[in-house]
């Protein structure tokens, strides 16, 4: 089993699964409203020119979030 990491540390093209979402309040709600909940599988598809924000590809759509927000999310890398 791969070690859980913080989403900020994820590499481009890495496939991951959300373990926990630690954010509360407005941020937490926005993250969940857009479908980032524990168990969601996704792939990091890109980082903006200055490495922040990151773009994530979920099964049906693409999302971006800042590194400062990615800090609240821990993920499990998926072997493939």
């Amino acid at each position, binding site marked *: 089993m791969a070690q859980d990491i913080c989403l900020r540390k994820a590499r481009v093209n890495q496939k991951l699964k959300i373990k926990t*979402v630690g954010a509360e309040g407005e941020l937490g709600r926005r993250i969940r409203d857009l479908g980032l*909940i524990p168990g969601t599988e996704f792939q990091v598809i890109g980082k903006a020119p200055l490495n922040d*924000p990151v773009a994530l*590809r979920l099964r049906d759509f*693409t999302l971006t979030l*800042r590194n400062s927000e990615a800090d609240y999310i821990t993920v499990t890398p998926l072997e493939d």
Partner: protein
Amino acid sequence: MSHYTIGIAGNPNCGKTTMFNALTGARQHVANWPGVTVEKKVGHIKTNTKSIELVDLPGTYSLTAYTQEELVARNFLVDERPQVVIDIMNADALERNLYLAVQIMELGVPLVLGLNMMDEVRKSGKEINSERLAQLSGCAVVETIARNGEGADELLAASLDLAKEKKGEWSPLNISYGPDLDPVLDEMVALIEAQNFLTDKVPARWTGIKYLERDEDVVIKGRMVNTALSDTLESMSKEVSEHTQKTLNARPDALIADHRYGYIASIIKNVVSYPVLDADRISRSDKMDRVLTHRILGPLIMLGIIYLIYKITFTVGEIPMGWLEALFGWIGDTAYNTLPDGHLRSLVVSGIIDGVGGVLGFVPLIMFMFLMISALEDSGYIARMAYMLDRIFKIFGLHGTSVLPFIVSGGIAGGCAVPGVMATRTLRSPKEKLATLFVAPYMTCGAKVPVFLMLTAAFFPAHSATVMLMITLAAWAMALMVARVLRSTVIKGASTPFVMELPPYRMPTLQGVLIHTWERTWEYAKKAGTIILGISILIWAMMTFPQLPEERQAYYEAQRATTQVEEQLAALDNTEAEEAIRHTVAGRIGMALEPISKLAGFNWRVNIALTGGVAAKEVIVSTLGTAYSLGEVDTEESQPLADRLVADSGFTAASAIALIVFTMLYAPCFVTVVTMARESSWSWAAFSVIGSTGLAFAMAVLSYNVAKVFL
């Protein structure tokens, strides 16, 4: 005749507005929701037996109360109780789109699901069993393709059927939120029902959920209705929250969301089937993103696109602008020739026609800019721009999308702050929007360019290009720094979370873009007839009254009578014009300000010009000409004025630098101020006028004194 109100809800980028346009065509009007700047669109459909009012709710992902959009959408459902809600969904991302639908179902409003973008779903090889979805969700389901209007009629028919069937009755969906929350929720429901707490508007269970979610809006309303019960519910919620925090490391709102998604997952499993090898399929949109948001290529392409928008707006827009100017010139000439000499003629020509004409002259610019921005927005590119630039703008407390208003306002010298300020609508985050609004007018707009050109040509003839570039860069630097200061003082607060969807690239529809452009243009043109007319008359009066006393006028008449020489006559006219403008309110203000403005190296002549510049920056050069008794100065041919300034020992190179700085930063022109008020509030617009002018003066004094030492 039966009357129906139907709300249209949906996620952003789900094709909701396109469907709304397809359903209502041109029979729609736009306003703002009461008290907020969120757009309200209403369309009417009338048949022989029915009148239907369609209300396009703001695009939201959820019905919480964190953003204005969400609050507006929710309050509409709760307070207006529409007979039916249509939820337009991007069927290609059904799972996430159902999250909003589930929340509407929990509220209980009769719901029709519009499965939009079915063409994309089919193309991707996905299959959606909409009958099964209807069974499992208990909602009517209609497959649609908003872009070509497919399914629009069926959607409306299904809604009307449902409205007739339900007769305004709500049947809320009850989902289990797990063993920790369900018992508490049941207790809450019992208490709420026993005291009829808020039950005239919303289901008891819904209120309970909102207390568990710590929804401030509902809690505040609850406290006002029944403080005791509200306190009980709050403490129940707090207790269970502490418990789940300890045992599950999650707050109730997170648990509720998880269970909603669980409920959705159980539906989806039976409804959507993905093609095999889906994981390796790379959609066209993703391929485009590999180039368009590439680390190096992406920003370069973006620069190109921004430059193109800018070029098209100002080169193509200039052509109809020229026609409008010619038209107003002709109207002005006609009025001038028909009306007898006197105040009335001056009022009509200089006050009304020039004032309103100057404002309407911007219409083509606004049209072209919105045409392109609407197209870019609908295509999904604006979200990519925000993504690529966010990091840089975040440093200054702004948002990735702030770049567009800056550029349009004159980030590349020659823009215009009016469409720039209107472009701040693409910013969804309120704090970043206010900061952007405030500083966008610092950019070098087309009206400031002649002032800068004249001054650089006069005082730094060898380096005019370099100086112009420095001015443009200084404007950016000031705008970003002031934004930073604003964001850490007046509009303090953490940056709005940047959790954003990158919608797939789509071809914008012509109808959508045209409707969008028309709405904005019309809104702007309407203003010209009202507020702006009033202000332009006021400014005309300030620069006209009081007039020279009769004996002075008679004196100039007499002088003119004694000479026949053309040049002397012209000189006399100019001296009279100078004396006349000194005598007016604007002139008196200019002279009264001299003791203060001396600190920045400005004399009374400059002061008058700057006062006039509040109306429109174009006026600065021509007023300066009048004040230096040169008569009217053509802004394109300002050589005589430049010579006069250089010759004036009271106006040095240091004054010129101070004047450039002041012109860059001080109060935006009045059309911009009105537009600003429209996009934010009058108090914010007033703050911008006062704050920017204060800053401009401080900076001008500073640069005058520094320049004096070095030059």
